[in-house]
């Protein structure tokens, strides 16, 4: 024999973007902190060692910020003109930065004055970085050259002049102390080995290269330029693995998250897109106020820092995870009761008798079980249900309608309750998933309370509002229909050619079969 079946609230598929694990993860950031810099932020680099300070290069300064500081904790301002690309060394002790005047300066984190200065570039140096062996620096300049410098002696080791345009980006391999990569506006990415006289690999990106990135494994290379982000397999001799075109303006910066599972790209179109590095599909994206020039993620994805063209630094911190603590707070039963019967190890011949789970009925279900339709409707018109889960309210109305008792449940209500009902209907009747039943409800209410119309100003007002809402919706639907008609016309003209083509095909097929028949 069956027991009472609780009312089923129909689940409606969520419209819009699907909530995936990724969206939840990337939405777990607090509201951003905005810091104003003196000029466009061209580089943000996190120190690889705790407390994970980060260096921000903007205008003629390099600011060092602490994790939660709003003010820079240190500033390097020994640049006559714009500074570029302040980058930490692996141990977080040294910092190197290029500059507009062509000199490269090396700073100690604790000091103020540069430790070394490397002169040799004739034009601005937009990219500098440390090689993995810690004692050499590579740089790329607007004089088309890519140089390698020795830190102790502050001398140039080698200079490659293979690029035919500005060198604007680069990175060093983390595994091999001799390998570094530069990207240039001549649409190429070149891989250099310090032991070789010339570049060991050239990759055609097809657009001025704005940013390059090497995966920690060193096997995959990512280049960004134009609207494209391209991933190359270095081990296969620079074969294109995938080309991503998800931005609608130039992609300016790239960055990997701490686990290496996600790739982030920032662009002038004000978006940061996050890709999965397994499927290369966009799993999430952030919107920003202005065009993005630089982007960095702290270790453990604790902070996302984005630098913009208008000099604003946007810092987002991750929310602390609370959910686990909350569940722990729940009072545990006393140890003795908790353990009771649980330390019994069942023997093999024991027969398990599972206790049926107790079915807890919601309030409206209890009332519906007792055929108390009016009270059930009252129960779901409580504010917390009516406002936060209107689908429950509507489902109960639907259920009452199915039972044929909706009319009697709606009848016999006072002014306050009617106005409450009408407010609900007015607000929700335009939602497509609720429309069919709420139209019936509205019909019934007008039917039932027609005789008493005009006795209460509040109710009359509500009725007028309902009428207005429905009128608006009708206008809207008409407009939509018009648009649909226009689109149909467009599609019709588009598909006409195809259709004729198909018909031709079909006649061919038919004649073919006919021919076969005759042969037979």
């Amino acid at each position, binding site marked *: 024999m069956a027991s009472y079946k609780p009312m089923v609230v129909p689940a409606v598929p969520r419209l819009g973007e699907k909530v995936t694990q990724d969206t939840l993860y990337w939405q777990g950031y607090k509201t951003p902190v905005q810091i104003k810099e003196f000029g466009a932020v061209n580089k943000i680099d996190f120190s690889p060692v705790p407390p994970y300070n980060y260096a921000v290069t903007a205008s003629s300064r390099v600011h060092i910020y602490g994790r939660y500081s709003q003010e820079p904790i240190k500033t390097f301002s020994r640049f006559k003109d714009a500074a570029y690309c302040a980058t930490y060394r692996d141990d977080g002790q040294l910092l190197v930065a290029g500059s507009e005047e062509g000199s490269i300066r090396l700073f100690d984190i604790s000091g103020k004055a540069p430790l070394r200065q490397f002169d040799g570039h004739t034009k601005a140096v937009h990219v500098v970085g440390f090689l993995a062996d810690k004692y050499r620096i590579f740089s790329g300049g607007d004089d088309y050259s890519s140089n390698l410098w020795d830190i102790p002696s502050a001398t140039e080791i080698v200079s490659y002049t293979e690029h035919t345009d500005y060198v604007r980006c680069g990175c060093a391999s983390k595994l091999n102390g001799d390998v570094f990569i530069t990207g240039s506006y001549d649409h190429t990415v070149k891989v250099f080995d310090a032991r070789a006289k010339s570049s060991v690999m050239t990759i055609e990106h097809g657009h001025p290269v704005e940013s390059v990135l090497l995966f920690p494994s060193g096997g995959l290379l990512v280049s960004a330029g134009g609207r494209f982000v391209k991933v190359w397999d270095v081990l296969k001799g620079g074969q294109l693995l995938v080309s991503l075109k998800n931005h609608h303006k130039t992609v300016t910066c790239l960055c990997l998250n701490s686990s290496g599972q996600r790739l982030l790209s920032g662009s002038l179109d004000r978006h940061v897109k996050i890709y999965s590095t397994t499927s290369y599909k966009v799993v999430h994206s952030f919107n920003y106020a202005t065009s993005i020039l630089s982007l960095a993620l702290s270790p453990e994805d604790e902070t996302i820092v984005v630098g913009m063209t208008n000099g604003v630094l946007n810092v987002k911190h991750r929310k602390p995870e609370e959910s686990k603590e909350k569940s722990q707070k729940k009072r545990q039963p006393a140890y003795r009761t908790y353990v009771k019967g649980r330390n019994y190890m069942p023997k093999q011949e024991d027969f398990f008798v599972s206790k049926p789970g107790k079915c807890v009925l919601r309030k409206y279900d209890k009332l519906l079980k007792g055929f108390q339709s009016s009270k059930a409707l009252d129960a779901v018109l409580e504010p917390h249900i009516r406002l936060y889960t209107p689908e429950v309210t509507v489902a109960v109305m639907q259920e009452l309608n199915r039972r*044929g008792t909706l009319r009697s449940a709606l009848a016999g209500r006072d002014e306050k309750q009617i106005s409450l009902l009408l407010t609900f209907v007015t607000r929700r009747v335009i939602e497509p998933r609720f429309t069919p039943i709420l139209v019936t409800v509205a019909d019934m209410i007008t039917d039932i309370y027609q005789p008493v119309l005009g006795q209460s100003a509040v109710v009359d007002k509500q009725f007028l509002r309902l009428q207005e809402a429905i009128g608006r919706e009708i206008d809207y639907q008409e407009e939509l229909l018009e648009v649909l008609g226009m689109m149909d016309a467009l599609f019709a003209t588009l598909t006409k050619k195809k259709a004729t083509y*198909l018909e031709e095909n*079909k006649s061919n097929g038919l004649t073919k079969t006919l021919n076969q028949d005759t042969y037979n």
Partner: protein
Amino acid sequence: TGGGLRVVFLGGCPRRGGHGCRLSRRRFLLCTAGDFVKVYSAATEELVRLLRGHGGLVTGVGLNPHNRLQLYSCSLDGSIKLWDFTDGILIKTFTVGYKLLALYALDSCEDSVFVIIPKRGERDTFQLVSVKLTKTAGQDVEAKEFSVVLEGVDASPKCTAFGREGEYVASVKNFHLQVYFFKRKQLNRFSLRATNAKGGNNLFTCVACHPKEDCIATGHADGKIRLWRNFYHNKEYVFSTMHWHHDRVMDLSFSIEGTSLLSGGVEAVLVQWHSGSDCKKDFLPRLGSAIEYISVSSDGTLYCTLHTDNRITIINSNLRFSKSIQGLIRARDVKTGLVVDPRTKALVLNGEAGHLQFYCLQSDKQLYSLDIVQQEYIQQAGLNQTDLVKVAFSAQGKWLATVEEREEEPDLELHLKLWFFDEETQSFKLNTQISMPHDDHITAMCFRDMDELEDDSLILVTAGKDCLFKVWVILEDTDPEAQQSLSWSCDFVGSYHNYQATNCCFSEDGSLLAVSFEETVTVWDSSTWDLKCTFCHPPGKIRDICFGRLTCSKYLIGATDHGFLCCWNLLSCALEWSAHLNVVILQPDPLSEHIAAVSWLSKESSLFVFKPNEPRPICIQRNLCQEKIQFAAFVPRDVPETVGSEKYVWLRRSQLYFLTDAQELMTFSTKSSEERLTVSSKQLAVEESLPVTPFSLLLGKHRHQQSQGDIDLTKVVRNHHEQDSPAVKELLHTPAHVLPSASFLCPIFINSLLISKEKKSAEEVADEVEMESEEAEEDSDEEEDVTEMEQENTKSMDLLGEITCKLSKAEEKELRKVRKTDYSWISAF
């Protein structure tokens, strides 16, 4: 066997009235079912006996008050039969000669029972009479001696009841209650007004009498129950009213001590009223469907309710649900048709409201009932209920698609649900629910039947009255965190000139989809969804379509409502043949090329079985049954049956079942009914005194097998014993002190146990004997020789005892004759 095909009634729902059930003290449940009385064990819900013998609908059963192992049954064939129901023996038949509509057997009446019979000469008037059952010996007895007790009673057995110790009888009809006191010979009539002030309907529906007190309970059409007291007086009677039912009270019954009253009605709630008061009552709700009869066992421990959907519920006296006996559940309206579950080979159709019943054909039992609608069912007349209208299984039974609809002017609620068979729980689990898959009624639904292919090629097609057909496919969610990886979504929407889509079906290999749009059949390529070609046979809309199978897969068969059966060739795109036949159902056999078409012409259904490649039907069976056949289905057999006649070769691999308008399930059988019955009765033979638990069944089976084995062995042995009975008998029955020594007897005994060649040898020996005797005749001149020979003869006879048996009587006679003549000849000498 060259015997003809016969239609076999399998089960289902004899909708004609006259049900009744009684519980006996020994925990048997007696229930009328059509022309039979069924005896169930209340403890195990097993069918113990099927009492057959009546020639008409059985209308009532009653336990013999003087012998609780016997029961009376009455039937429309005008006879009362007395049975020993534990052994299933018919003891006596009393022929009354009138249609009997109800039977009451009372303790107080020694040799008579009360029956309701139609009054002679008047239509629709009935009278309660007492029939004297004569105690004359013999099986068939005439019982013409009866006296009228009450005139103008209702035909329903529920409307008459006998009071305390048979002192009075109460009967209700329309708005009158009449009570007749046997001793005083006084008749009191009480009337109610047709409607009361509040507009309630005072029509009497049933009556029950208190077993200990003078109290009558009556049920009314508006749901009220009245308790009448002090009805000896025509004026000073009193009644109290109790009201809970919102609709007609279907049946009333007092408990054995009369402390509580049970009532039931459309609400499917059994109400127990305590001590005749309105305030104290207990309920047993959600019994499935309206209660039609309530019965209390004679020891008072069990109640039993009979429901309109052909189900019996057994309830403990503390109102705890105990068991239910259910065969093919009678649905309000079968809309799904007959579908075969590929996994269990069970027939699937509408069952309990909102449920799908899986009915096992072999055991005549419901396997299980799958809740599709998953909504609380409100038992109320005039409500638009959610109906299950379409069901389809994928080829392996892995997926189940169901369509439910609820029509409420002007809205239509439609749900398409897809269920996945969960191997772990061994049941179907809801996978996807699609609300409003079409804007109008769904007319047809089918899966692409492809056995060898994987899940991702599974396609479901629905055709709707909204002039569209939709193709649904499985989507796989690659997100590992998602709750379920598979879900269904719409892949293609097709239409044809804005005609309503009426049918759809896939070809056997799944490459082509045929969808009929009113007058036209369209054929679509299932990989590209291109329209390939169209067929039509104007005038007349397409009623049903199907593809041929196996060697006939190039044909498409269609039936139009203008009375034509058409067969189109898909290769030449031309009409192959057509026949003038008003086909109602077109059902292809999944295992062969045969297609069954059921036609409906002038109030009779006929069956035509044909192969699409030839227009001549293989088998024609006219006049299947009087009712219109609604649905048919081929159920694959477990073991192919050997069918002698060429005509019935289509029955070899699968069996055709069909369901009539009256929800009666029928099938064809080439076997004679006796054969079938023996099989079924063998299955039903269960030791009735033992409670049948699964364990006992297991044990019983084991024992049965063992005993069967034993029987086989003993049979072999016994055969021999019988054959060589003289030798062995002599050995066994002669006193030991007379017997010769064992060493002498041993070879004889062992010889007698030898099996092989004995027949042959016996014949040979017989021949020899004959020859010898002939010789004897020839050489009868010498007396000594003859005697010698005789001695030899007797010796051999002694040694081989069985030979004497083997000699035919004629031979023996001849021998004897020879002997006689010999002796006479000698004496004459």
